[in-house]
């Protein structure tokens, strides 16, 4: 229970300038993989993601070979390869590729948002939609689709849904912040307020659907409401590719603070963490990431719930390591589930949200059992 006499007592403030070189004499780290092994795991994850994106682009109602894929990329990127016939070329370049890239971006985004919100609200059941953002997006999309807001030209309908969803998501988040204003942003209050805001917008969505949508609109919207990658085009990918890395980087910069939040606001603050500021920043980051994702592809469930839990089992709960791995795992997971959604009942396409839920429930049960909570 006491330090060796004669050596510097590392626990005294006077020892702050004492540098310890190399590994500590007593090996504290045990069990989980250390630094180099983790880097290896991360690089392996990047490789798996790259292969998944390439493979995912091949899979679908029309099969695309590796050479075909190479020819499309070569021709489009100006490498001088002979292009494919226009129809196949367009299928790969205009539909398949943006869709797969979107799945990777959205998957990463949802997994990281779920991880962050689970830490901020200290609630293992938190997912990216806890803040009510997806309900806001749904309401916005439904209102935009039903009201003849976007009458100009073909394609304006889809744009109207996306735009309406984005506006709805941001409005609902604004309402959430207004309700949380002047509170300490404590964990339970965030979760409860998010649920209430979500319920309000869900009711609004149902109201508009029941009151004014015709059968065709309802059917089209149902697809979107369940979460589908089908509407992903290059413009949406561009927005996502711009916003997602920024959001992920912001979350990663808060990693040490996220760890500190594990024992509540007082302990976190006593560790030098600006608790309210950190929580606010992370709420804004997750709301923006979720809004951008939901606006295009709808509320795809379960990715943001199970991926964080699964990855935590693999690399541990420290967020510096957890966040990047969760991003990779989320991306890979959604790329493959979307591929499955395309081919499982081909030629009919299932909304990927249905697949993630079908796969997510058993996976979640496995994770809970592994953690000894079931």
């Amino acid at each position, binding site marked *: 229970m006491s330090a060796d006499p004669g050596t510097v007592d590392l626990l005294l403030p006077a020892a*702050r300038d004492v540098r310890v070189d190399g590994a500590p004499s007593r090996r504290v780290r045990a069990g989980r993989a250390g630094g180099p092994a983790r880097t290896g795991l991360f690089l392996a994850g990047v490789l798996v993601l790259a292969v998944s994106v390439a493979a995912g682009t091949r899979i679908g109602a029309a099969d695309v070979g590796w050479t075909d894929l190479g020819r499309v990329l070569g021709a489009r990127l100006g490498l001088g390869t002979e292009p494919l016939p226009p129809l196949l070329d367009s299928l790969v370049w205009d539909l398949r590729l943006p869709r797969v890239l979107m799945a990777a971006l959205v998957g990463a985004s949802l997994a990281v948002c779920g991880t962050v919100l689970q830490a901020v609200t200290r609630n293992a059941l938190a997912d990216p939609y806890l803040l009510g953002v997806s309900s806001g997006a749904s309401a916005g999309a439904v209102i935009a689709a039903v009201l003849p807001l976007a009458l100009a030209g073909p394609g304006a309908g889809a744009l109207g849904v996306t735009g309406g969803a984005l506006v709805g998501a941001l409005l609902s988040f604004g309402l959430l912040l207004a309700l949380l204003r002047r509170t300490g942003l404590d964990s339970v209050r965030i979760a409860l307020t998010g649920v209430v805001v979500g319920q309000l917008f869900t009711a609004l969505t149902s109201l508009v659907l029941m009151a004014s949508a015709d059968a065709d609109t309802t059917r089209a919207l149902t697809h979107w409401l369940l979460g589908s990658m089908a509407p992903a085009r290059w413009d949406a990918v561009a927005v996502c590719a711009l916003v997602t890395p920024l959001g992920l980087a912001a979350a990663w910069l808060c990693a040490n603070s996220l*760890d500190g939040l594990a024992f509540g606001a*007082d302990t976190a603050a006593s560790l030098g963490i600006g*608790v309210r500021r950190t929580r606010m920043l992370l709420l804004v980051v997750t709301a923006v990431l979720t809004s951008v994702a939901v606006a295009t592809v709808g509320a795809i469930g379960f990715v943001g719930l199970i991926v964080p839990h699964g990855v935590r089992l693999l690399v541990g709960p420290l967020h510096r390591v957890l966040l990047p791995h969760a991003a990779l795992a989320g991306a890979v997971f959604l790329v493959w589930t979307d591929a499955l959604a395309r081919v499982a009942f081909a030629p009919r396409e299932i909304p990927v949200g249905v697949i993630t839920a079908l796969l997510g429930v058993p996976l979640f049960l496995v994770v809970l059992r592994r953690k000894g909570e079931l």
Partner: protein
Amino acid sequence: MRITAEGLSWLASGTPVVRGVGLDIAPGETVGLLGPNGSGKSSLLRCLAGLRVPDAGTVRYDGLPVRDWSARRIARRIAFVEQDSGLDTDLRVADVVGLGRTPFRDRLHGPDATDRAVVAAALDRVGLTALAGRSWRGLSGGERQRAHIARALAQQPYGLLLDEPTNHLDVRHRLELMELLAGTGQTVLVALHDLTLAARYCDRLLLMHHGRLIASGPPAAVLTTEHLAGIFEVDAELATDALGRPAVCYRGPLRPAVPASATATPPEPAPAPAPRPVSTLREGTS
């Protein structure tokens, strides 16, 4: 580090919890903070730790007012241990203790060799080295409490503020913990319910009642039969232990048990609660 407070007051929802407390804790002093439940000990500790912004008064570390200090600057001076909330986390024991290194790390960096050595030393100091790789879930209440202490020690603080750290500990671990705190040579203010334990290990005791500091001095001067009866409402005798410190021998609660219905109704209607001032609504330091 010298910790001082002048005229410190703090309101919770308009109700004064800490009222005009002034104190002066000398460097290296081990001070026990006593008082019945609801006397304001925890709130006073939080004000002193910079976790609550006092509605009136000043907290100073070594004479410098800390009101405008960042949470990080405070965390590099002082460590705070709250009562264990019984929370489950997936963190391992070494990770929890490693949280104590947060104030010394920038955003982009994980633990370095020094951090790991300090964490190892802190675990060793509280006797938890063997459990370093264990999950937090599997720990007993006492082990968790000791891990929290180790986390505080890993902050290499100049002062330690602890809110009933002996709560979940058995007798042996209580004694070891108090010996450890008294032996750090740092300024320690520790809220305690165990009066005899406080008298045995603290240089000085502070006694709180209804938010006010009503006594301060060496154990024998604070632990008097009058205080035990008037403040703690217990009937007790005081003995003197082998070291000349007072030891409390309880006979029982002072007032006989009254039926709940007799105490539940206040004699006059309670006044309407005052509106909540904004300054009391801040949580932590932001």
